């Protein structure tokens, strides 16, 4: 294509999934055998950047020995009137995608973990210089992210230089992460809405705030911000969050307005930090479900990857079915794993103090974000497989929900009894022993009776009381 006329190999999204095996590789850059490697995006001022400049510090690809691995640092420095440091992470992650579009180049991982291979065939075709890779990055960044006005790209392979810059890169990632984690919903004016899933679930819209990741786990507030500024008419758009109506539940005037508009009025109120009353809706690709367990007045969490039954006896497939399709269902809540790491996670409902069960694998992933006082009090499938064993476990560990139990438990038990009695109701149709009538004082005798019905329909009678 003419856009990449001067590049010796093809460039296109179809090369994205390309894998280059060791025996087919010309050289490896970064990767597990190199301790120091990194890629870093930095936002600079317009005067600091020379647009289009590509610099190579150290040996170029053509100078490298076939079959060997080399350290690598990639520095992408950008400038633009509307760019700020908050967008560095988003820009940096594009390096991975764009580099993979190059035929015969494999780019894995990100940040201090990058692993790049250049294939033999690509090298033979002439992909022998970082200049080419730089040009591809330059063109794609400029054409895809119009907010970037100037960009310069540096490839560093000189081991001493990589070693020297490496600690600084680590420091930058840490600063960026701390800033991201510390960012609070109240501190920003804009949230972001995502309607990508409306292509399959037309009545769902995701509200993405700094402290509430998209349900699918794929789009952070920063991603949303970048998408919206690059393509303001696109499926990810800014929401002026407006006035805070309820800090505890997470209700904002602007969010309500936008959700109402985008769902054509199906949903007119969203509370961001709770699974009750007006929970955030979901499409179908949420990573996990938070489900209320009335018997213990707490929440279970179950992830898509969990194969067994959750503690309430239902598998993910059934629980997920209770919340998909853009509906607001009390006590069932589609969420991302990342949201579990947020301080606002189910905040209005008690946060982690209200969580009683989750799969071990998920617990391991989010452990560092669960308050220390409660982390060991939350059961996994190893501690509890059903509600009874869960109750025992929670009592034993004195989980915060236990304190609230006493009166409520009695009530719940009573309801359960009512339920089971009524469930039995439709059965008499089939059973002759209960046919004789309940009326007091009379004795009814059926002799040579024949009762015919063309059709008998059995329906479940809903117990209004248990619905709450």
């Amino acid at each position: 294509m003419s856009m990449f006329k001067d590049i010796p190999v093809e460039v296109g999204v179809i090369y994205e999934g390309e894998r280059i095996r060791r025996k087919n590789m010309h050289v490896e850059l970064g990767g597990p055998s190199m301790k120091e490697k990194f890629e870093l995006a930095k936002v600079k001022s317009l005067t600091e950047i020379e647009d289009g400049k590509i610099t190579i510090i150290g040996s170029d690809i053509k100078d490298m020995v076939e079959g060997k691995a080399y350290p690598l640092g990639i520095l992408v420095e950008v400038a633009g009137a509307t760019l700020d440091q908050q967008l560095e992470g988003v820009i940096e992650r594009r390096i991975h995608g764009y580099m993979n579009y190059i035929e015969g180049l494999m780019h894995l991982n990100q940040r201090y973990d990058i692993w790049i291979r250049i294939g033999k065939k690509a090298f033979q075709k002439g992909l022998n210089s970082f200049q080419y890779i730089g040009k591809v990055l330059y063109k794609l960044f400029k054409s895809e992210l119009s907010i970037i006005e100037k960009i310069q790209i540096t490839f560093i392979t000189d081991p001493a230089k990589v070693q020297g810059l490496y600690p600084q890169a680590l420091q930058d990632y840490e600063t960026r992460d701390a800033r991201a984690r510390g960012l609070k919903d109240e501190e920003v004016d804009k949230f972001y809405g995502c309607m990508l899933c409306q292509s399959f679930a037309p009545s769902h819209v995701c509200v993405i705030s700094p402290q509430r990741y998209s349900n699918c786990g794929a789009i952070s507030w920063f991603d949303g911000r970048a998408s919206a500024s690059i393509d303001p008419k696109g499926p990810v758009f800014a929401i002026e969050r407006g006035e805070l109506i309820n800090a505890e539940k997470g209700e904002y005037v602007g969010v309500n307005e936008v959700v109402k508009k985008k769902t054509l009025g199906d949903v007119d109120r969203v509370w961001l930090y709770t699974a009750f009353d007006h929970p955030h809706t979901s499409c179908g690709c949420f990573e996990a479900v938070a489900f209320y367990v009335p018997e213990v007045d707490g929440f279970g969490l179950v992830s898509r990857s969990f194969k067994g039954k959750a503690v309430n006896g239902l598998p993910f497939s059934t629980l997920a079915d209770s919340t998909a399709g853009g509906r607001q269902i009390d006590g069932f809540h589609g969420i991302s794993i990342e949201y579990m790491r947020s301080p606002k996670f189910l905040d209005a409902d008690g946060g982690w103090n209200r969580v009683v069960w989750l799969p071990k694998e998920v617990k391991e992933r989010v452990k560092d974000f669960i308050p220390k006082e409660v982390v060991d009090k939350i059961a996994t499938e190893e501690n509890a497989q059903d509600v009874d064993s869960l109750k025992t476990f929670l009592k034993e560990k004195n989980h915060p929900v236990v304190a609230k139990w006493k009166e409520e438990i009695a009530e719940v038990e009573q309801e359960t009894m009512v339920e089971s009695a009524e469930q039995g109701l439709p059965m008499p149709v089939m059973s002759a022993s209960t046919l004789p009538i309940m009326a007091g004082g009379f004795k009814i005798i059926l002799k040579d009776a024949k009762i015919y019905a063309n059709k008998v329909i059995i329906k479940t009678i809903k117990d209004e009381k248990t619905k709450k």
Partner: protein
Amino acid sequence: MTRKNVRVKIGEMKTNAGFIKNLELSVGKLVDDSWEEPMGPTPKPGLTTLRNWDLKLLNRYKPFYMPACDLCCLCTFGKCDLTAGKRGACGLTMAAQSSRIVLLACCIGAATHTAHSRHMVHHLIEKYGSRYPLDIGGLNIKVEAPITRLVCGIRPKTLGDLDEVLDYAENQITQALAVVHTGQEGNNLDFESKAFHVGMIDHVGMEVGDIAQVSTLDYPRADPEAPIVEMGIGTVDRSKPVIMAIGHNVVPSVGIIDYMKDNSLDDKLEVVGLCCTAHDITRYWDRGKIIGPISWQLRFIRGGFADVVVLDEQCVRTDASNEAERVKAPVIAASAKNCMGFKDRTNDPADDIVADLVSGKVPGVLILDPDKVGEVAVRVAQKIAPLRKRFNVLPEVNEVVELAKTCRHCNMCQRSCPQDLKVPEAIEAAEEGSLKKLNELYEFCIGCGRCEQICPVNIPIHSLIIKSAEKQLTQEICNCRAGRGAIQDVEIRNVGSPIVLGEIPGILAVVGCSNYPKGGKDVADICREFANRRFIVVTSGCAAMTAGAYKNEEGQTLYDEFSGEFAAGGILNVGSCVANSHIAGAAIKVANIFAKRPLRGNYEEIADYIYNRVGAVGLAWGAYSQKAAAIAAGFWRLGVPVLVGPHGSKYRRMLLGRADKKEDWDVYDARSGDKVNVGPAPEHLFQTVETKEEAMVFIAKLCIRPNDTWKGRSIKLSHYIDLNKRFYGTIPEDLHLFVRTPADIPMTMKDDILKILKGKNWKETIIPDPTLLPRMIRKKRK
């Protein structure tokens, strides 16, 4: 839990409350309606219930007829010449007659699957009881029977519940078949609509069959890691007696395997299968083997590999018994639908039948009791194997040369060959003593044997070809993955986000028979190409076998190389013909899972959803039977386009959209009610392609849907453009029809494409929430 005819009879009963004598309580039908989902608008649709929907599709994709025959010969008024606008004695036009034959084919196909399922359900109920619970995927599947729910409004829980579903299907097939009678419909679109209807019924029939067998026979249950199974005659231990089953209905084969297990013989014999029965043998038993697809029946029988041939139903060569007789392999016909002229010995003692078959007193028998089939087949195989000593009817090499010398060079063999193979050349070379050219035919031959039938000097040409390739044949060792059954709900959730974001550009279902040249290399190449492009590739039936018949440089088949998960780059075999229902089922579940659209009796809405959103394409490379026609028709009604290979023109018609007519491509935007032009997406509903290259370009293009996000569309277009460039050397001419906003343009081609768009006077448009149904336009709530 619907049950019919519940009767309670009480002779005498005394309780505190009353006294009962001779009470009879009879309930015609007991219906469990505890399913909370309300009934949709069209449970158990009749012939015309969904006609409006069909006409919407048929007006977009107008049938284009290619009559295989100029005449109608169906009644005794005729034959009637229907060419050049003439009407027949009944008044019928050529278009109506062509569509009538399509409907007839679909009725035959649907009847075949449904009757197969009826036989199985009946047998399994007898064996396991009607209350045996259905379980096709344990905890990972909530929607156990998406097609049955969608079409019938029934949520089956037990084997017995399937009865009512089959009652409905049988009823509809009878109704539709009646339409083919002289003097019923006269309009071709009405015939077509009915063909769609029967196609839908066919999917119901298939689903019932597969969920019944998966639930009872302990098959892999929606298992992405269903075991890799051996395939090819080279995998068979020929020191053991070999029983070969051919057909589609696994019940007799289960009888054989159970008998072996019960008598500790399971490592003493080989049980191998051809065609779909092979799939189901390996789903039932890990030591079962697939030896090949449908088209290889002659080579395996003539090669003398089988000691006993068991025939069940469907796609069995009708001369299989004659061929088996030639290699002295006794035949057991085991299906009421395929008796082969044999005497019914179902009620005879097994000892007598075994003796008659071993002694050669009779070449074959009909046994309609699967357990008895099991006993007889195993005992006969054990006794006859040492006597037969792999007797075959392949000529020796010197005989091949001698036979070739009798050739009169009339070229009739090539003329009668459906593949137009250069048989005369190969025979000529054989005359000179070289079998090389015969050997080259082996991979291209589809095994029909027509060359032999036409040969005026009776040269057994097919046997000559087999002989020339004997070494390849006996060394055929490759892998298939046992049919996994349904797609898990959780797998569908997992692919939700990547499909929305375009990381998975589409779903390709490679189905049908393998009657095509090169033994399916084309199929394997297409599967690999699209798995590498991170499509989800689903296979079934004989196509699933041929997909596994080729190895890469590292000796891996596609099933070794790619995962069996319903995920980007997965290649999954759902199973036998009846398992095709899981492919349609997965599309249906997408609507249920992501949009929470109710399925129950809600066909039109779900088909509209799938048509406008789910980028799936079916590919049947080797045309074959009427069943394939019915399966395709079921996909059309759901709005899933189907491509057929070079033989597909013999289906007599295509359903082609007109990309040049802009007005054909309006949809409603459900958000606003506005009409939005979405371009030809997908362009055709049923189409023949001539080469695998053409197929690949169209597969990429037919995955385009009106709802695509810009990201998804840009990736779909990348694949379309890339394949078009690779095979035709150009950027596709119709690109401007598929670009809605600049963001749709693949980012690495922006400059060039913007230039093209300018030249085509392209205008930006919006991405709607697409529907063809005005009733789906959402009303704003206040």
